[in-house]
């Protein structure tokens, strides 16, 4: 049942076993170049390219997280305007464009919910929170870059019960408790599956898949 709702397309043929999913390397370069063009030259054509590739995915993601039709469209526009405004804050050393877009989408949803709850005089603070601290050292940037690669492993290699949990959490924004309730399994089992899934993705990267149910 849950598998049917998963929006990720069936695994495309891979050039190498265990090669990363997601956009191939050339298109990642494109995306980073688009953002640089937006940041440095206010390049509207680059923005349109990025919009065509990602706005429909962002909309689908926001809908999966509960934004209704027109609101999902409006929120997608908001997210893309943030991309336009903050393009200079994107640092390719810290992650992929897609990862950056995910965090902006997440922050927009979260801030929307928080602003609705907050006392009006405090609403102004909401925008400041998402900015992360800069990495203190180049060592950290290096470590992050290595680990980031390690999880871009092939999701399709995961057993369905592990993949479903990641889908519930990442795509639909479920808490692990909500994942457990929906699937009628104990929270501890959900946590175990998350751990095994992440281990397996890292293992695939290292060419040593070693995930076994314990």
């Amino acid at each position, binding site marked *: 049942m849950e598998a049917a709702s998963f929006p990720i397309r069936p695994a495309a043929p891979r050039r190498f076993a265990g090669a990363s999913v997601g956009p191939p390397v050339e298109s990642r370069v494109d995306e980073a170049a688009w953002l640089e063009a937006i940041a440095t030259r206010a390049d509207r054509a680059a923005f349109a390219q990025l919009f065509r590739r990602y706005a429909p*995915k962002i909309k689908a993601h926001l809908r999966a997280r509960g934004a209704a039709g027109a609101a999902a469209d409006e929120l997608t526009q908001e997210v893309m305007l943030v991309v336009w405004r903050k*393009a200079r804050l994107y640092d390719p050393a810290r992650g992929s464009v897609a990862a950056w877009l995910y965090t902006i989408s997440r922050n927009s949803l979260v801030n929307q919910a928080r602003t609705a709850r907050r006392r009006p005089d405090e609403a102004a603070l909401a925008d400041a929170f998402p900015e992360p601290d800069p990495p203190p050292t180049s060592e950290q940037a290096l470590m992050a870059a290595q680990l980031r690669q390690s999880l871009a492993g092939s999701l399709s290699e995961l057993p369905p019960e592990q993949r479903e949990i990641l889908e519930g959490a990442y795509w639909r924004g479920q808490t692990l408790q909500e994942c457990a309730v929906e699937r009628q399994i104990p929270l501890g089992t959900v946590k175990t599956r998350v751990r095994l899934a992440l281990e397996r993705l890292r293992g695939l990267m290292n060419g040593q898949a070693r995930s076994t149910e314990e």
Partner: protein
Amino acid sequence: MTPTHHVPEHALVEFVTGAGTEGAALAFACHVALCLKCAAEVASLEGLAGTILAAGAGQDLAAGALEAILARLDETPQLPAASRPAPSAPAFLAPCKLPAALLSVLPRNDGWRTVVPGMRVVDLPIVVPDGAVRLVRFKGGVTIPFHDHGGPEYIVVFTGALEEEDDGRRFARGDVSIRLPGERHEQRAVPGEPCVALVVNEGALRPLTLRGRLLLAIARAQGPRRK
């Protein structure tokens, strides 16, 4: 110093997806800012989020969406690089080197008050039913008597240290302590320097000693300052 008490991986997943509570997100953001290991882990989990977003099947936007947003770009100024000046801490907190996530929610006006002897707090603008989200300054040697929690508790230490009375585990700069309802404990600020920590209680504290109940009654009588 590298922290020794970390955020569990499954909780970092909720941090990255934004599914966790606002209080937990603030606590984890503070820990991650001070912890190389968890920062790398978060970067890795965000990479996975990007992979999942990029692999997702899209849904068409309403007709004319691209034209509509292009028309709005002219009235949408772009931020220059490093536009946001780092928020600064009040002078007496400067030695704590608070992370940006905390500074960005720290009230600009001085809202510090003494809740019980040896413990000064400032309320942070995060609303938690029955709970509190505060930056707390414990005087060295102060104890928090044996208590239980009505909801999850997240503590991140910025300076000084807190120590568990039963097993002596010590939480120093960057360390995160996560306690769930039913996990009872007594803590003590290590004697000497004061301890400054973010304390998120997503539920009422339940003192289990007479002294604790007395202190809580005193603290409640002080009341949070409302604007």
